């Protein structure tokens, strides 16, 4: 993971991982990254930050799934109607 290369604009202020130097555009992603890539080196504070970010993401994923399901149903019925008409 550490041999990645990055492009950072001048006006951007990334959240940089202190273990491998990888920059992230959101603090939560850095928290998640620490937990996933450097699980053995974390302080208590980082661990709880990881947990919070992970749980927050669960909520967001839930909403995404609902929307995806909606799109799927819409797609299915559109095709069904088209096949019925053509």
């Amino acid at each position, binding site marked *: 993971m550490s041999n*990645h290369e990055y492009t950072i604009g001048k006006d951007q202020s990334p959240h940089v991982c202190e273990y491998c130097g990888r920059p992230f555009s*959101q603090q939560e992603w*850095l928290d998640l990254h620490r937990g996933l890539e450097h699980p053995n080196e974390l302080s208590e504070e980082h661990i709880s930050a990881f947990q919070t970010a992970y749980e927050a*993401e669960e909520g967001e994923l839930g909403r995404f799934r609902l929307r995806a399901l909606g799109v799927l149903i819409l*797609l299915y019925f559109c095709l069904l109607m088209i096949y019925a008409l*053509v």
Partner: protein
Amino acid sequence: MMRENQQRITQLTVSVLLLILAAGTVSAHGASLSSGSREPIRVPTWLFLSTGGAAVGASFLLASFVTDRQFIRQLHQWGFPIHAENSHVAVTAGRVLGLVGYVTVLVIGFIGPSTPQTNAAILLVWVGWWAGLAMTSYLVGNTWQTLNPLSTIALVLPSLNRRYPDSYGAWPSVIGLLALIWIEVISPLAADPQLLATAVVAYSVVTLFGVGIFGRDTWFDKADPVERVFRYYGRVAPIGKTGRKIKFRLFGMDLSVPRLVDDFDEVVFIIALLWGTTFDGFVTTPGWRTLTEPLVAGGFPPQVLYPVALLAGFGLFFGIYLIAVELSRRTAETYLQSRMVAVQFAPPLLAIAAGYHFAHYLGYFLELAPALWLALLSPFSDPGTVPVYQPPSWFGGVGIAAVVIGHLVAIWVAHAAAYDLFPSRIQAIRSQYPFIAVMVFYTMTSLWVITRPEVALPYI
């Protein structure tokens, strides 16, 4: 933990069921289309293409329901070793077989029967090797590395072992692949045995010359286009090498392994392979004729038409991929360089290329396999009639299913690759939006090509 496991299993079951449903619907429509020419009612092309595209899009949504990192990793790592080490007997047998095939192609090519359908050289190269062996390389595993007769000959050749410049990378193989596709399309290599044998000699001279300068390992690893095609196809197959061990794993799972592709040049090669298989089919569609007729009538030299179209289409495919990479960097809000993103999401495209190759060549292979067998049994005699297998009418559906399955595998592998690259799962899903759009475009293009009637190449 219990709850998590249960949730994971439910998620998976639902996804798999829906995925099967999606694939099943599409292949059913495909079958009805292919038999459509014989029946009065048929699905219009636009609807058939949109159904294919919709199936790909729907599969992405279904794949995105699987959000358990651990499960994805386990699925990709699943497998078992088959044999601890290379067996010398098998390697030697493979090399001998490759050499026998090579000598057969040269001898029968130059002095065998002149009818292409009865000439063992023509049948061995096109039916046995480019259709049959290539199919086994992504369905079973890559054997070309051992069979390759030039690689065997190179074992006994001296080499200057010059350092291969890093800046060359995979570029010689990209140029070689495009050149091979061009020659294959425009010249009667599948009709003229002597010309085919001459082309094989020419290719051998170039290859062995390269080996003489840079050494066998370097040349076949970096510059030889054919070796690279088979190696990349082999990554789709369930049997393959992991380190020194031969391992069995699930289809396409090796595509998400990092370091299959290191740099832009290799991404370009994958796109060239994908475009090459499409181009091969595209020039035999009536659409190509309609498209080019006004150009040639307007004074455009027909000889230039094919290379220009080959390069233009390649540029289009590559340009679209690059745009997708840039868009993906934006939707995923990542600081990763475009190069890193391009490299991560190119290998899944190989599953698409394999699916398309299968759709394009399975029928061809089955039809001509009896002829190949007969020609190999009596290579010098010229029987008047050639046995040809006629595939049943539902057979068109197999090709369509292959294209769709290739895309399904690609979507899954890209999903796993995104999880590997991004810490946030929602970020990983968002990074896929542009690539899914590209895949929908590729599917619709290939479905369109394989369902067109085949016509002879114009202006050649």
